[in-house]
């Protein structure tokens, strides 16, 4: 990897943010953190991350709304979004899978509780 890519982690669980952040940093990614949807939107506009790991249930603005705002914005829509959801059944497919009946514009998702190694694989796949 010639240049460190910036990953934004958005979750209202600071313990989880720290755990994911440490793992990403060990793989040489740059990491930014946000703890609610509003804070995430500010960081996304300011820092333009390559990829966002985005929780669904958060204060102020939830992950579904953040995802919609990004994917409907021409300047931001190419940012890759991986949704974190505790109720994975609610995300039948994503635009990444190109199936009919998609329920979110996110590029990928991973159910909670996340397997950190699996999450790192997904991040690396998207950041290649």
């Amino acid at each position, binding site marked *: 990897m010639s240049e460190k890519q910036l990953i934004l982690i958005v979750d209202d669980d600071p*313990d*989880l943010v*720290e*755990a994911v952040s440490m793992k990403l940093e060990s793989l040489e990614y740059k990491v930014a*953190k946000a703890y609610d949807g509003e*804070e995430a939107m500010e960081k996304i506009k300011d820092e333009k991350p390559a990829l966002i790991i985005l929780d669904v249930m958060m*204060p102020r603005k939830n992950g579904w709304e953040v995802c919609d705002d990004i994917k409907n914005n021409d300047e931001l829509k190419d940012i890759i979004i991986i949704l974190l959801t505790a109720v994975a059944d609610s995300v039948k497919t994503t635009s990444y899978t190109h199936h009919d009946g998609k329920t979110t514009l996110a590029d990928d998702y991973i159910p909670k509780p996340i397997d950190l190694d699996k999450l790192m694989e997904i991040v690396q796949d998207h950041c290649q």
Partner: protein
Amino acid sequence: MMEPVKINGIRLNKNYIQVIQKDIDMLDQSSMSLYQIMESNRINMVFMTLNTMGSKSFVSGTIGLKNFGQTIHRNESWEYDRRVCTLSIFPHHHSLQLLGFLLLHLGGLRLSFRHMVSSNAMLTFVVDQENCDAFTDMFSANFDLPQSHFPFEQKENDELTQFLKKKYPETRASYVEKKIKTYGITLVPDLNLGSYRFSFDHLSLFGQKIGYMEDKKIRFYHISMHMASPEQISVYLLTQKSLSVAACNNCSADLLHFHGPHFGDRHSIVSRALSCLAKESIRVLLADCTGASISIVLPQGKGKAAKLSLIDVFDSP
């Protein structure tokens, strides 16, 4: 002048009642403890601390005002304290410098609190609600917070919750799992558990001592503090080895730590964990829950058996 210490955020939960049950014996099956009664009533505690280290064991939890009526009629022997809030700062990076810096300022401003415990990333205080603004002011003045930060508060708004539940499949986590999913259960054996007890007047000095030790590499694994009386503070600090700061007592202990999705919003989780340990007659020295994390301090050598017993009820990837 000291440089402000960098943190990423403050978390706030208002409008809670602190409930305290003293002289508990978690291995005694004949009476129900606070957390068991909360489980049977499906009531969540956003914060709980259990301590069997001192001369008087206790369990203390914070419950929402709306649940107060459900508990007080049944348990007149419990102590109920006036409105409290929980305030967390994060991340602490297990840094004794940050911890010392924080205690130094709290002592200097004589900002009293009821409890303070750590999770993997957070330091959480239970404070009287009337002191909430003084705490947030102190954090804002002395810590370097991101410009975009907003001290977030997850408000109970039933109308909004119902609307969001209809619109989005996942907005509040109130689900119950037969086997509770976690992000993993971590055992750290053979730590030093230092016990300290001193007057509130000495809090600044204690902060200065632990925050400015010569060896900057020493990290803390867990901390649990409470006001033992209006003027006395008890501190339990887990580190790799004993610190140069004189303790009332040092002993060896094991630490179990785990957290899972939405633990902070769901009832019964800590109760199920402690019931697992009670079934195996494993004594718990300290158990602290804040945010989505549970930390359990056990006598040395008991960690492995405790972890095995938890795996019956908790799923560890």
